[in-house]
């Protein structure tokens, strides 16, 4: 059954999920370039600061783990458990995928001033869905006769290259930082409006869709019919660099050193937008579409008529070429750090704003330096995830520092309970 495969795909996304970028490891790297990705005001330590390659990747959800949706038979086979699915709390959930690739970042410090520049390829997928959709797919529409279900998924896929110039200034214990970013969009899918209400009517179970669904895309989605959709994602690329899909964004931050042990900081990252003008498409479905069954007379008169064709042509979708803009996913962070001998502690609150949903995350972390090694333990709290514990390892071989971090290690061997997972790694230098 195709429904089963649809559902399976959804589960896979949930299972491999990692929600938001874990900024706590970067925040630990105060004085190095990666910390300026959390807050451009966090002072650089040395005159020359370089970050050579840095990768973050992860998928996740603020929603449901595999174990929330499935059970195992006596023989150990996993199956979709409708009873469990029916117990899902009603509401909206999101799926997130982020992949940041930092190619090169450079920071030069002159006394109390520092200047920064760098390039990164950033991509993200944010999808929103309502519990109605999950329950409908799991139960079929039989239990929902006469009820209206919200089934329109929202989606925001963005991939872009960013070039930035930044500066930070220290005034006593206060530090201010700013980055101005030129953005060059590679590809985008954006659901401007995602209302799709599905009702199985009481009368004789007509299937009715009330749509106000608008999806836009640049260089990624091609829609010809419901059964002819192409998504062509090219991954890391310099497509449109300097030419199309231009945008601007800024990072601003403030950092205050209360004493030698304690400092606090606040930042707003990626405040800006991209204007999509390369092959911009607008796909729109508006109106009420009802499948009322087959007219026998039409069948008698046209033996080539197929129900599948009738269903596929039921929902009208118009296509237009129209430029559009999207805000880039932005973050607002507030953090505090405490240093004690070879120990350091971090607390970092993150508000993540996407076109789909806003999400909150609170990280608590502790790091211990032993000789040239750094070890860290991170605990992250976010919606529907109270057991996300991560680890961090750093190797300091001056002027080089290597760092690797992974989260959700408790669920490393019980994926079915995980809602988030991810990894970051990088190489930074200081002279």
């Amino acid at each position: 059954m195709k429904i089963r495969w649809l559902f399976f795909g959804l589960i896979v996304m949930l299972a491999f999920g990692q929600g938001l970028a874990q900024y706590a490891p970067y925040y630990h790297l105060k004085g190095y370039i990666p910390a300026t990705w959390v807050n451009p005001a966090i002072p650089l330590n040395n005159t020359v600061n370089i970050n050579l390659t840095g990768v973050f990747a992860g998928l996740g959800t603020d929603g449901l783990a595999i174990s929330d949706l499935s059970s195992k038979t006596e023989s150990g086979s996993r199956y979709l458990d409708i009873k469990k699915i029916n117990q899902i709390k009603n509401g909206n959930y999101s799926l997130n995928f982020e992949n940041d690739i930092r190619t090169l970042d450079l920071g030069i410090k002159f006394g109390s001033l520092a200047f920064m520049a760098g390039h990164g390829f950033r991509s993200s997928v944010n999808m929103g869905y309502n519990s109605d959709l999950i329950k409908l797919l799991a139960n079929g529409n039989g239990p929902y006769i006469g009820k209206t279900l919200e089934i329109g998924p929202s989606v925001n896929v963005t991939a872009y290259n960013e070039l930035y110039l930044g500066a930070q200034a220290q005034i006593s214990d206060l530090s201010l930082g700013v980055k101005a970013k030129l953005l060059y969009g590679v590809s985008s899918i954006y659901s401007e409006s995602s209302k799709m209400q599905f009702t199985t009517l009481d009368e004789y179970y007509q299937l009715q869709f009330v749509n106000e669904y608008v999806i836009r895309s640049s260089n990624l989605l091609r829609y010809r019919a419901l059964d002819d959709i192409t998504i062509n994602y090219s991954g890391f690329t310099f497509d449109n660099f300097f030419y199309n899909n231009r945008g601007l964004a800024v990072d601003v931050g403030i950092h205050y050193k209360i004493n030698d042990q304690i400092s606090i900081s606040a930042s707003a990252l990626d405040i800006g937008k991209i204007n999509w003008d390369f092959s911009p498409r607008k796909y729109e479905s508006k109106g009420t579409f009802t499948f009322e069954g087959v007219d026998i007379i039409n069948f008698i008169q046209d033996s080539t008529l197929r129900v599948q064709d009738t269903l596929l042509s039921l929902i009208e979708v118009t296509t237009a070429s129209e430029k559009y803009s999207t805000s880039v996913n932005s973050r607002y962070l507030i953090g505090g750090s405490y240093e004690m001998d070879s120990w350091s502690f971090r607390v970092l609150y993150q508000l993540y704003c996407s076109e789909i949903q806003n999400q909150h995350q609170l990280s608590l972390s502790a790091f211990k330096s032993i000789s040239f090694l750094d070890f860290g333990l991170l605990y992250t709290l976010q919606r529907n995830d109270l057991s996300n514990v991560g680890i961090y390892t750093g190797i300091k071989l001056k002027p080089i520092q290597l760092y690797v971090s992974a989260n959700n290690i408790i669920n490393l061997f019980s994926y079915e309970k995980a809602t988030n997972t991810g990894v970051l790694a990088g190489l930074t230098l200081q002279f």
Partner: protein
Amino acid sequence: MNIRNLKKAMFPAIVLLLIGCYDTDNLQEWDFNDQEYDLAIPIVNTKVSVFRLNELVEGKVAIKFEPDGKAIIAYNGEVLRKNSAAIFPPYPGVTPLPITDTIAQVEIMPIQKVNIHTAIFKETKINFTVENNLTEDLYVVMTIPELTKDGQTFVKNFTIPYKNTLPVTYQTEDISVDGWSLKTNRNIMTFHYQAVTSTGQKVKLDKAFMNFDLIKFYYLEGYLGHHDFPVDGNFINIGLFDFWKSGTFDFEDPKITLSVENAFGLPVHSKVNKLELTSITGNTVRLESPFVDAWIDFLYPGLDEVGKVKTTNFDFNKNNSNIRQIFNEKTKTITYDMSALVNPEKDTTKTGFITDQSYFIVRVAAEIPLYGSVNQLVVEDTIDIELPEVDYVTSAELKAIISNDFPAQIKTQVHFLDDNNHVIDILFDDEGLDITAAALNNNSQTTTSVEKTVFLNFDRDRYEKVRKASKIAIIGYLNTTNSDQKRSLWIYDSYSLGLKLGAKIKIKK
């Protein structure tokens, strides 16, 4: 959906998966185990109005509507179609016409059959064959006074050349007489020739003939003969009562109609040899009418109406025949044997015409205005079936909403039968699906539908039982409002039967 290169983006996640997931192989085997899955779907939404029914009828059956929507069923019989070739086929020149003297009158067609007054030739060619026994050239002028075109009389000049051998036989080239008009009396054509030597001496040709392959005409005027065209031997299959089991009908005004389109300028009338109605019980009754014993004259264009088509419609109806009485005895077929007679009186003094475009068409039909009553009619039909095996479906509940605009109570039952015609199951409970007649207004028309909702439950056991059926018997019952009092009601084009059918299906692997 084609997702290219998505693996690039998914790579980091897959790495994480490989670290943490050691039993993910069974992810691909996920299913619903033995849980039930409920679907509710609309299956049919059809409203079959009488007007729409007309789109479905094929062949010789048609539904016609009067301007106010009243419906008439028409069963068309064979159509007789004749063109001018049937009256006057192209005339072959089997033997040359002899020109026996310098002035010769030749009968070009036998006067016993036709008497042509005017003929305009079409695509016709003639030539002359002559013989000379003089040892010199001869110069010939051939004239046909009756043959003219644009005011000019037909004249042909030719030379018979002497070539040192005798006799000299010479044939002219083909001469087109297309568009030339022949004015004649009693089919006579006059040939007048003058043959002279080089010294001016007139001579008579030893032999002279006019030849032609085929004479065709644009127009012919005169007495064009008596013709008898049969319109016979075929049935009009009514079919209305094919599935009759019991009950009575009373259609007010059934008709057998003759419709004739006539572009021939000739008198035509019908001769009915036989007109019979056979009931479904095999009883055959002759239609009785004064017009069966006599004839029906059809209109035809006069000499001043060349090119016009005259239409004659004639009905055998309840006023001029016994058709109402015999038709309502559940007529199955109508058999007819008629003739269309051209120049029926064989009066050679009557002048008519045909053109090469002339035709006449005779249509025979039965028309049943749907005005009458149907009293406790029961019909039954049996259809072979082979119900498919259905996987995964544990039960189905069908919901049917039936609407009825007709001023008739309708009952339906379906019997599932095995090979020995034993009833295995019945579709509807009790006496079947019973829908009352729609109410009538003061104009004896229905305005609002009667609607009925029924539920049919099939669990797996019942379906498996029904699957053993090799045929179904569909039994229908119809009773128009006040039919016991023979209250006649019209069926209008807007009347319809509606079916909305949905199903709730439980699926389990």
